[in-house]
């Protein structure tokens, strides 16, 4: 029983990170109908930034959160300006493969620059912290990550639902041409969307670096999970991403408890079942 509750708690903590990684992906899709296949590799970049800031600057990952967020927001803007803006009016195939090319490119660069070595931070500030309730242990790093993930997801949600900028983003998502007539520049909104998406994945990367080592291939696994979370929750839906992310984490850890090899397969299988029954995802409107 303790094992089961332990697996559920670990799963929830992991799931919160899944949700945060998925936020940027779902945001971009919701606003402009583009899937960023390189999203997992954005996370990888954020993790390397955090790692090297720690290695050379001796700054704890917690301190790097704003740095990684800022850097990744800038990177998001760069990617939008150089690549995405140019394929928005192009054929669907271009839209699908452009970020796919970016994924291959980023993975290659990371391998060239940092080699395939696994790099972790052995002594983060939150490392020694432990929370034990009724025999169930929650690591400090995981707790911080989950907490940060939830705070960040809620912030993005508030940004979208409570601010003027959020209304503008929603307007562009619904109808870019009509928004333009209302005096909103869709190009500027798209740019901001990529910046916010980049920043959120930057935060996720910094938080994850507290307990998860980085390799050039890390984007493959996390990126896949992000797609699955987003398609399951419904593309463009933040609540969907949060709930699906938490569910994925729990399922992965609980199934992994009984069948260690199949924890990962279980979430994909569940995803396939859900999208077959409900192609728009749990909270998607289509």
């Amino acid at each position: 029983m303790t094992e089961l509750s332990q697996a559920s708690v670990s799963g929830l903590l992991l799931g919160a990170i899944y949700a945060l990684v998925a936020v940027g992906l779902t945001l971009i899709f919701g606003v402009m109908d583009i899937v960023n296949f390189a999203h997992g590799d954005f996370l990888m970049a954020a993790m390397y930034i955090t790692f090297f800031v720690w290695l050379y600057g001796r700054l704890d990952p917690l301190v790097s959160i704003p740095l990684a967020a800022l850097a990744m927001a800038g990177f998001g803007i760069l990617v939008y300006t150089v690549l995405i803006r140019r394929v928005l009016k192009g054929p669907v195939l271009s839209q699908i493969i452009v970020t796919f090319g970016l994924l291959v490119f980023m993975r290659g660069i990371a391998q060239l620059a940092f080699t395939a070595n696994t790099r972790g931070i052995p002594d983060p500030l939150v490392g020694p912290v432990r929370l034990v309730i009724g025999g169930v242990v929650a690591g400090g790093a995981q707790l911080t990550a989950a907490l940060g993930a939830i705070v960040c997801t809620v912030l993005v949600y508030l940004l979208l639902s409570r601010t003027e900028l959020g209304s503008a983003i929603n307007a562009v998502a619904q109808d870019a041409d009509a928004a333009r007539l209302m005096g909103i520049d869709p190009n500027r909104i798209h740019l901001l969307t990529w910046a916010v998406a980049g920043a959120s994945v930057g935060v996720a990367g910094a938080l994850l670096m507290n307990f998860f080592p980085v390799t050039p291939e890390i984007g493959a696994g996390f990126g896949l999970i992000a797609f699955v979370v987003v398609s399951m929750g419904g593309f463009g839906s933040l609540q969907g991403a949060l709930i699906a992310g938490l569910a994925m984490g729990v399922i992965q850890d609980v199934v992994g408890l009984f069948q260690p090899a199949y924890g990962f397969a279980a979430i994909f299988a569940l995803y396939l079942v859900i999208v077959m029954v409900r192609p728009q995802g749990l909270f998607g409107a289509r």
Partner: protein
Amino acid sequence: MGLLLFVYPFVVKDAFWQNVAVLALVSASAAAAWNLLGGITGQVSFGHSIFYGTGAYTTGYLLVRYGLSPWVGMAAGCLVAVALGIVIGFPVFRLRSHYFSIATIAMQQVIFIIVVNNKALGAATGIELPLREASLANLQFSTRDLLPYHLIALALLGVSSLAIWLFMQGKAGAYVKAIRDDEDVARAMGVPVRRYKLYALALSAAITSLAGSYYGMYSLFIDPNVVLSLNLSIAIVLVGVLGGAGSLWGPLVGAWVLQVIQEETRVRLSGAGNALDLVIYGLLVMLIAVVEPAGLIGIGRRLARRLPVRRRAVQR
């Protein structure tokens, strides 16, 4: 073009370039198959290694376990791949564009995990194929001169291209193009959308499986991390897109360019070359998406169109 590819192994005797040619022909077949589904029918699959792996595993398993000829294995692999394609395609074709692409990745992951945990299929280490007497029946030849390997790979590519070409000649060709251009309009015009997507997938799966079977026999080792990997799916898409999605010659051009880049960087930079080729592929794909979605073939056509115009201008 065909003649050039036929003469090539009689003239070129360098082991490096012979190997590049065989691998390029095999990946051209797989990419042509992907192209039928992704480029022509507009269903961008990121899970084609499923079918490649199906071919390789079926052939290898039947050979090691029952001593069956690889030719039987190839045929069986095709059947299994078509069956698998229909089982996968039937539900997944409910999804469109990005949703479809993501579902194919998930399918590939599930199948990969199942296979690497299956002892009968060699689990994570894969299947090693036994060395047999060199003969056409055994589909094994001396590796000193890859001439026979080259000719069979060329024949496979020829048969595959012919099958795709024939498919495109009938009403199926018009239907799948209509589906790519606008699925809703196609359906409104009375095209049985899902059925024709499945036809395209079935043919695509069969050809990809052939390529996988042959690759397995060529390398005599079936490694799940190669033949069933996401990276292979990526490579198949890259070859198809790089040459020119939707064109018949595109995959062949793409396969040559990629194979040369891959082998060259590997030889020149040893271990690190593995990453440099990724960097180059990635750059090429981004460039193609942004500049010329019709791929290298499209760039070639554009140049060809421009040249005579310039000449005329000069004459004037």
